[in-house]
């Protein structure tokens, strides 16, 4: 449901910060209340993660990662994100190219459908795959080796289990991070229009040359942020993965699931230590987002400055 949030296509104009004669006490009260609100609801949770993680010192902090189960969880998370992010990256590029550069019927519907996973509870995202691939699911019987004389041996040989296993975790991750890259790219490409691509074509470039040398460089920062956000969400996904994971330590646990297990075992320090890893990832994501926005704004301001120069001369 993050539809309208955190998209880079909107770049603020060089701002005019006019308080328009708000009296100082109004400003002070509004700023004060806002800061308090952010402190209570955002800064406090952030701070508590690191405080709790370091409660027993650095040694205990690093010990939390020395655990083989923790390492297995990190490996699995990297694997799931390593598959989900490239898939959704390719999808995002294809979808934004089709939607931003061409006119066709049902485009609005397609955009809505792409954003659909935002509106689906992560728990339900997990559930749908259980229903599809589970023993009683639509595709479940096809996965049951007994039902399939010719596929059975192959499935057996490859030990193919989807739900409560790694493939299910990957699928859930793909589903919940499905819209992120597309969501960043579509408005960006739409804003840039088609003229540069058409210019490249009139200059004799092929479709691939145009895409690689004109389109991609133009959206690289938005693409970069989309991938970073997609990755952060892939690594941090909890609900959907929880439903599809077998919760087997060292085998089907991702980092967030490992945090849950540690927390439920009252091993708070270790839980927060592992959680701090994901928190750092979130913070890096925010920093990159602002860097990217800053870059976009700089390009825009350079354009505005050039226009000013033109009027001055």
């Amino acid at each position: 449901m993050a539809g309208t949030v955190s998209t880079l296509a909107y770049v603020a104009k060089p701002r005019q910060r006019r308080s328009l004669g708000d009296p100082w006490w109004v400003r002070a009260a509004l700023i004060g209340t806002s800061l308090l609100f952010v402190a209570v609801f955002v800064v406090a949770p952030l701070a508590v993660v690191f405080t709790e993680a370091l409660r027993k010192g650095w040694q205990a902090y690093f010990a939390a990662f020395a655990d083989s189960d923790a390492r297995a969880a990190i490996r699995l998370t990297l694997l799931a994100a390593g598959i989900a992010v490239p898939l959704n990256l390719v999808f995002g590029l294809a979808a934004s190219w089709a939607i931003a550069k061409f006119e066709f019927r049902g485009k609005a519907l397609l955009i809505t459908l792409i954003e659909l996973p935002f509106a689906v509870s992560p728990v339900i995202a997990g559930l749908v795959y259980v229903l599809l691939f589970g023993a009683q699911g639509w595709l479940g019987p096809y996965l049951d080796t007994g039902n399939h004389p010719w596929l059975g041996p192959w499935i057996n040989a490859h030990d193919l289990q989807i739900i409560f296993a790694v493939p299910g975790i990957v699928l859930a991750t793909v589903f919940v991070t499905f819209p992120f890259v597309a969501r960043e790219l579509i408005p960006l490409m739409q804003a840039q229009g088609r003229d540069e691509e058409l210019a490249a074509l009139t200059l004799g470039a092929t479709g691939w040359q145009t895409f690689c040398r004109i389109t991609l460089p133009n959206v690289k920062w938005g693409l970069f942020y989309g991938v970073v956000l997609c990755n952060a969400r892939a690594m941090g996904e909890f609900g959907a993965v929880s439903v599809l994971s077998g919760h087997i330590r060292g085998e089907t646990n991702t980092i967030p699931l490992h945090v849950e297990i540690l927390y439920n075992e009252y091993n708070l320090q270790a839980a927060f230590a592992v959680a701090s890893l994901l928190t750092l990832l979130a913070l890096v994501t925010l920093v990159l987002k602002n860097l990217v926005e800053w870059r976009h704004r700089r390009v825009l301001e350079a354009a505005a400055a050039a226009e000013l120069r033109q009027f001055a001369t």
Partner: protein
Amino acid sequence: MPARPHRNVLPGFGLSLGFTLAYLGVIVLIPLVALFARAAGLSWHDFLAAVWSPRVVASYELTFGASFLAALFNVPFGVMLAWVLVRYEFPGRKVVDALVDLPFALPTAVAGIALTAIYAKNGWFGQWLEPLGIKVAYTSLGVWVALTFIGLPFVVRTVQPVLEELEPELEEAAATLGATRGQAFRRIILPALRPAILTGFALAFARAVGEYGSVIFIAGNRPMHTEITPLLIVTKLEQYDYRGATALAAVMLLGSFGLLLLVQLVQRHYARPGRA
């Protein structure tokens, strides 16, 4: 050679749209259709039993009630935050601006354990609140806190761009016409922000309704009291009650899609030509 009926100058339309539709279908649409097909296969009696038992109804009340109140709480604070970020210059403004996105980037499980730690009896806030008789952790108030956290970016990020685009000339014009600052805000600024506020509210609400990770740690999960509907789905699933889980999921999905539709209707209503 007759011209083909339709020709695109830019290449790759068929390939990119084809891949988009295929991927969308496999990853999103087929699974969702499967869910509704399964739900439709249930008998009316089974369906009703799954989605209208007292325990389930209690979970609806909590889920939708707390989500609604959390989104509502985020409206004034979100607008205020957006206002402060757009209109005022103060040290740390950029940091605050960046932090607004944190609930969006922070994994929900991390948010859940962090909030629980803060509001637990011996936590940073809990130790002060409990003596006052305010229990947050493991109560419905805790659910509200988690959902407020989750919904925080939505109102801010929908209102902020509108506020940035709003011409200061409008307010200056109002001032030259004798309006006070309060009147200018109520009669000029607020109406301009209304669609963004409604959209932000609905997005925050819809996101909160489906939220799972951040809530289950702080809720306590006592049936009839602090059990949210998504948790109930997981519980049913763990008990191999696939029918119950499916029915409940179908109801929740319809609720979410209804909210999404509402957002679209709001945006279409305000985008209608001839509307200021």
